[in-house]
C-alpha cells in the first residue's frame, strides 16, 4: 500500500470483514448499557491493569503488583485460594440445597431422598456439596502445612496465623454441623460420637451437651441447632474471619518472602 492512498472504502473481502468485526465490537462493547457496567475496555496497559485491580470490588483485596516469585505454583500451590474457592462453591450449592430441605426430624431424611430422586440436578448438587466440603477440610490442612514449612507465620504475620487457626476450627465445626443434616444413620451415629466427646469435657460436659446438642441424645433440638449454625452463624463468622485473614495478608506486606 502506498502512503498516498486514502483510507476509504474497503477494497477486498478481508477489509470488509474487518470493518464488520469493528462494527460488531462497537455495538457489543461501546454501547450505553455495557459501558454503564464496565467503564473501560479490556485493561491492556500496565496502568489500567493496576487500576482495574485497585478499583474492582471483587479484585480489590489483591495488591496491584506482587513479587515475581509469588506466582510460582510451587510456592503456594494456590492452597489458601482454593480453600476459599471451596467455600464459595459450598455457599452456592448450599443455598440451592436449602430450597429443598426442612430441618425437621420428620422431614429431613425424606427431603434428602427426594432431592436425590425428584429434583433436577439435586443429586449432583448434594454430591458437589459433600465432596467440596471434604476437600475444604483437606485443603485447609495442606494450606496450614505450606504456611508452616515456608515459615510464613514469622513476624509480622503472627496474628494472621492465629486467625488461620480459628478458621481451621471453624472449617471443622462447619463440616461437623453439616454432617447431621441428612438425618440418616451415618449422620446420627457420627454426631452421637461427637456428642459423647463433648459430654466428656471436664466441668462443662453436661452444659456442652445441653447448649450445643440440645440435650442428652440427638433429636430435633440438635438438628435445628446444627442447621442454624451450619447455614448462617458459622458461615457468617467464617466469612468475617476470612475477610480479616485476607486483609491482613496485605497489611503484613503480602506473602512471606526472604528478607
Amino acid at each position, binding site marked *: 500500500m502506498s502512503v498516498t492512498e486514502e483510507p476509504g472504502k474497503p477494497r477486498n473481502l478481508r477489509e470488509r470483514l474487518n470493518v464488520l468485526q469493528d462494527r460488531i465490537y462497537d455495538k457489543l462493547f461501546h454501547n450505553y448499557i455495557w459501558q454503564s457496567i464496565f467503564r473501560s475496555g479490556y*485493561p491492556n496497559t*500496565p496502568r489500567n*491493569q*493496576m487500576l482495574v*485491580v485497585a478499583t474492582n470490588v471483587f*479484585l480489590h483485596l*489483591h*495488591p*496491584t503488583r*506482587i*513479587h*515475581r516469585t509469588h*506466582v510460582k505454583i510451587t510456592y503456594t500451590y*494456590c492452597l489458601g*485460594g*482454593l480453600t476459599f*474457592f471451596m467455600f464459595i*462453591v459450598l455457599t452456592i450449592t448450599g443455598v440451592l440445597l436449602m430450597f429443598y430441605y426442612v430441618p425437621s*426430624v420428620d422431614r429431613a*431424611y425424606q427431603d434428602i431422598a427426594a432431592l*436425590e430422586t425428584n429434583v433436577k440436578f439435586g443429586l449432583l448438587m*448434594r*454430591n*458437589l456439596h*459433600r*465432596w467440596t466440603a471434604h476437600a475444604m477440610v483437606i485443603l485447609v490442612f495442606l494450606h496450614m*502445612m505450606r504456611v*508452616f*514449612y*515456608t*515459615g*510464613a507465620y*514469622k*513476624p*509480622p504475620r503472627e496474628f494472621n496465623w*492465629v486467625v488461620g*487457626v480459628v478458621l*481451621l476450627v471453624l472449617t471443622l465445626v462447619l*463440616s*461437623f454441623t453439616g*454432617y447431621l443434616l*441428612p*438425618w*440418616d*444413620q*451415618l449422620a*446420627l*451415629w*457420627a454426631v*452421637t460420637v*461427637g456428642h459423647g*466427646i463433648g459430654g*466428656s469435657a471436664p*466441668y462443662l460436659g453436661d452444659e456442652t451437651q445441653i447448649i450445643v446438642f440440645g440435650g442428652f441424645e440427638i433429636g430435633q433440638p440438635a438438628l435445628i441447632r446444627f442447621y442454624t449454625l451450619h447455614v448462617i452463624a458459622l458461615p457468617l463468622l467464617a466469612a468475617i474471619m476470612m475477610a480479616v485473614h485476607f486483609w491482613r495478608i496485605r497489611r503484613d*506486606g503480602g*506473602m*512471606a*518472602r*526472604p*528478607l
Partner: protein
Amino acid sequence: MAVEAQRQASAAPARPRPKRSREEEVLVWPNLVFIEFISAVLFTITFTILSVFINAPLLNRANLNVTPNPSKAPWYFGNLQELLLHMDKAWGGVLLPTIFLGFLATIPFIDRSRHMQGVWFGTKYAARITVITVIYATVVIFALVSFDAGESTGTERLTRWIPACAESSEDVSWPCLRDEVGADHLGIVSTKDISKRLEFEVLGVKWPEDLDHIAWPFNDSIGDWDLGGIGLGSIHGWGGEHFNIPSIMAEQVIPLTLVIVVFPGMIIYTLFRLGWVRTRRDVLIVMFTGALTSFVALTLVASFFRGQGQDLIWPWKIKVDEG
C-alpha cells in the same frame, strides 16, 4: 510502655525490608488473576466430574434404637475417637485437642526470628528432620496403638515375664498380673491393666487396692461450701467419693506423659545431640510435624483398622453391622 516493650521484642533484627525493584514485580492482572481463574475452572470441572460418578452416602433413616457397629465419627474427628480408647475421655476428646490447638496458635510467638521466612524448609536440616519425624511419629503411633490392643496384636507377650498373681492375694510384694480364674496367663494387654490387673506392694501399701479409694477433699464441697456438684467427677478417677490413683496413672499420667513428654522429648533430644536441631524453629518443626503426623496416623487407624466394638483389625476384615 507495653507498646514500647512489644516493639523492642518484635524488632529483634532491626533490618528494614529491602525495597524490591520494579523488575522483580509482576502485575496482578493478568499474572495472578488468570492463575486464580484457571485453578477455579480446573477444580470446578474436577469436582463436577467426581460428583457425577461418585454419590454422597445416604444410609437408612436415623433411628436411635438401632446402633450400627462400629459407629464412627466423621474422619477428621476419627483421631479423637481413637484417642478415647487409649486414655481418659476428657483428655483424649477435649483437653489434648485443646492443647494441640493452643500449641498451633502460639507457634509464631515461640519462634519470633524473621530469618528465612517465606522459604520452604528454611533451616539447614529442616527437610531432613521433617522426614525423620514423620517416620518416627508414624512408628510410635502404630506401636502404641498395637501395644494398647495387646491381646489381638500379640504385644502382651513382651510383658508376659511378669508372673501371674497367686490365687490368694496375700503375697503381692513382687509385681504380678492377676488373670481371670482359669484363663491363660497374659502380659499387659492394655494400659488400663496397670490399674486393673497389676498388683504389687511397696512399704506395706498395696497397688491398686489401697490406693483406689483415697478420700478426696474437694468432692462437691469444701468445708461448708457446697460446690453444687460442678462435676469434678467428670475426669475419670477424680470424682465420686474417692481419688483413684491407679486409674489416674493408667488413664491420664502414663498416656499423657508418653505422648506429650517422653516421645517428643526423645526425638528432639536425639536430633539435638546429632546437631540437626539447632534453633527454636527446628524444635517447632519437629513438634508440628510430629503432632500432625500423629493426627494423620490416628485418623488412619480409626478409619481403616477399627472394626466392631472398636477392635483393632485389618481393613479388609471390617464388617459393619447396620444394626
